[in-house]
């Protein structure tokens, strides 16, 4: 029996004993059942499987540690009221915030972080990783790591501006429809139905083939596709606020639509709208990546995660993980945003009472 296996079981058993001694039932059950499962895994898969389990657990523990530290950091630097809220955030939410924070830094400081240029050819095609290139080279011999960093700027920036555009259009239309009511509401509702009845990917492809694959065309096309969803949600949320007595009081005071929306309705509908923003951002991000993968998104040589997956796709048949790196970057951001959104939804839905 190798030293690793002995250490592995010793660590597990000591940890479970400690958990049991301090009457931590949850951790104890997790640790001890892991010990029992490890017996089986060890017999079936040998030391290699145990090593995999240990690595997995270590990554998880590392992520949890980072999340915990990051949450405490946020609690300290945030103002007291916000800090109190953050204290109640689950680790998944702070993990999400940490990932978003990291992506943000990468996007903003891309030229300083990236060791090589965005489209600079520095090695042979598909060169393996070395000290110079952390993640190896892509199909033209450009540094994968640098392109991932620049990709954060391009892909995330594009998705963010498209989402903001969709929200600007959808939320304003929804608030107006809820406040005005009547024929305006009906007209906007049916108009949104018409847009939603067109298959989104086909609509985007159509727009891009007519107007050419410019960044502005992508942003506008994606905004038009997602605005009706935002419109529907905003109208429903604002619809519940509009019937309140304080809106009636404001109307009877003679307030205009602008004041009603800005001061009375919007403050009462921000929570679900912010949560929806996060959710829509993920969808937009995936749609933009999908467009890039089809070759109609951001055009080369600009680095973009979606097109990077496509360009390197052939390598997957050789068992190399290079094409999975940009895909992983997309997946990680989507999951991170969803973690944060989950927490926000949880807070605004009042489920926290339990």
């Amino acid at each position, binding site marked *: 029996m190798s030293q690793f296996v002995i250490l592995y079981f010793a660590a597990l058993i000591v940890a479970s004993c400690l958990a049991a001694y301090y009457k931590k039932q949850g951790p104890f059950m997790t640790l001890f059942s892991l010990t029992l499962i490890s017996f089986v895994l060890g017999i079936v898969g040998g030391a290699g499987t145990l090593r995999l389990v240990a690595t997995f657990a270590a990554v998880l523990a590392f992520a949890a540690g980072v999340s915990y530290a990051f949450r405490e950091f946020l609690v300290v630097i945030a103002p007291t009221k916000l800090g109190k809220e953050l204290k109640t955030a689950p680790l998944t939410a702070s993990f999400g915030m940490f990932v978003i924070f990291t992506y943000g830094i990468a996007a903003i400081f891309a030229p300083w972080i990236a060791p090589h240029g965005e489209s600079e050819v520095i090695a042979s095609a598909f060169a393996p990783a070395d000290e110079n290139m952390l993640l190896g080279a892509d199909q033209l011999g450009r540094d994968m790591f640098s392109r991932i960093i620049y990709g954060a700027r391009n892909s995330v920036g594009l998705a963010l501006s498209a989402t903001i555009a969709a929200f600007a259009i959808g939320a304003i239309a929804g608030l107006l429809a809820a406040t005005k009511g009547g024929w305006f509401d009906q007209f906007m509702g049916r108009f949104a139905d018409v847009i939603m009845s067109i298959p989104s990917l086909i609509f985007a492809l159509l727009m891009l083939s007519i107007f050419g694959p410019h960044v502005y065309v992508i942003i506008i096309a994606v905004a038009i596709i997602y605005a009706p969803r935002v419109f529907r949600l905003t109208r429903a949320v604002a619809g519940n606020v509009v019937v309140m007595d*304080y809106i009636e*009081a404001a*109307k*009877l*005071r003679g307030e205009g639509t602008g004041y009603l929306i800005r001061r009375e309705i919007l*403050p*009462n509908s921000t929570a679900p709208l912010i949560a929806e923003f996060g959710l829509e951002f993920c969808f937009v991000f995936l749609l933009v990546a999908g467009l890039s993968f089809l070759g109609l998104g951001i055009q080369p040589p600009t680095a973009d995660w979606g097109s990077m997956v496509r360009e390197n796709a052939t390598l997957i048949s050789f068992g190399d993980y290079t094409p999975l790196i940009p895909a992983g970057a997309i997946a990680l951001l989507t999951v991170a945003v969803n973690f944060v959104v989950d927490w926000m939804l949880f807070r605004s839905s009042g489920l926290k009472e339990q």
Partner: protein
Amino acid sequence: MAQDKSVLLDIKDLRIDGYTGEEWVPIIKGVDLRLHRGEVMGLIGESGAGKSTIGAAAMGYARDGTRIVEGSSIEFDGMELTTATEGERRALRGSRIAYVAQSAAASFNPAHKIIDQHTEAPLHYRIQSRVAAQEDAMDLYQRLRLPDPDQIGFRYPHQVSGGQLQRAMTAMAMACRPDLIIFDEPTTALDVTTQIEVLAAIRDIVDQFNTAAIYITHDLAVVAQMADTIKVLLKGEEVEQASTEDMLENPQEDYTKSLWAVRSFKRTQKRRPTGEPPVISVQNVDAAYTGGIKVLDDVSFDIHRGMTVAVVGESGSGKSTTARVITGLLPPTSGQVLFRGEPLPPSYLNRSKDQLRQTQMIYQMADTALNPKVRISEIIGRPAQFYSGLSGTALKHRVDELLDLIELEPSQYYDRYPPELSGGQKQRIGIARALAAEPTFIICDEVTSALDQLVAEGILKLLDRLQSELDLAYMFITHDLATVRSIADEVVVMQNGKVVEQGPKDEMFKPPHHPYTDLLLSSVPEMDPNWLTDLLEERGVDNIGEAADV
């Protein structure tokens, strides 16, 4: 049948904690309660006194966010509920302990027929076959004097009236012939005329089956009719307990005495000022909602400067619709509203800023009338800013002045948000917002009906003081005749969208009355424990249902 009077429910040192989001704070602080078979105990107190929490605890149930503290004992017929398993407790609920909630409309499932919901419990506990259970349901409907008892159960909940639904719910609670029923404010949401039939039905059926009951309410006059003993609660602690007669005649504690004295507030009636047009004159107004159903039919009345006109009637009588016509939210189909002799444009959209300023509203539910995301300073400051163009220190000064006027300390409330205030404080902020516009006429739509009696009295006194200081005219919409008695100068009685009677208050409370006014007046519960019995005799028990359906 010899009636068994043994102890059924014995609660000792009941302590319940509630979770505030950060820590557990005590809600019930050691209450003892002993109930015999066939006994009806009334639990009274303000909101937040812990009445409903005790009611739920009697079933061994702690609501979400609350927990029963160790050391409390709830013994039901020899069985300790705090240590019983969830399964054992669940077996009691519905079969031996039943619960009747405040809003029957919200408690019935709208997708199933009433009788199917009624027979669910007996079928679940395998007490009766479906046919037997349905026959029993019809028998109970008859005993509760529901109209058409053989057929009514086959309707859906929305097809019967609120009072009938509340009785159907009482019948449902009786389905398994429980030993104990908990009534949680069963008549609070009903009109006075409907309330009587429900009270009479509940009292009869509890008596017939020797059922013990806990009757939770904040209305003393109601509890006087229903209960054998009364327990007064304040902030999770018992104030006192006594038999109903003793409690009414000879309350011991100061708090109980103050509860009893609330209804004594009464001010002198004012006379109409002469030689000037009324502030608001509603002239031959007809109104209809989209769909064409006429809700107001030839409504006319005047409101003079500095006077309070109470508009009374059951729900659906058109009181609030009249207010909507005056404010311009619902333009009338014919007729007009005059302000100081000048006709007001029918829709608020066409009224000038000054016309809008003159008429203000105070709402029933302060929770929905104040924007929860806006600071008090802005809620009150906005009308002053909007109409008078005040800003900066002048505005702050005006807000402070208004907060002083409603007896709230400005520095404490200036920066707070509505959800941080109590119900009474919120209502005061609503009043301040109306005053900020410097109106001459204020519509008060059921302003006290959502409040506890002591708080409501404070609001009425405040409104009265403001009226004499600022020479305001009030239109007071209410279904509570006690409020009318204390604050009104003139009374308008409405029924089915028509004005049936109007005149000065003193004349209205003196016979002869219009038959509907008479019905309304006689339906207001009084503190006399024999009031219900006498009234039922007077009216003749059988036609009580018809009387209320007028």
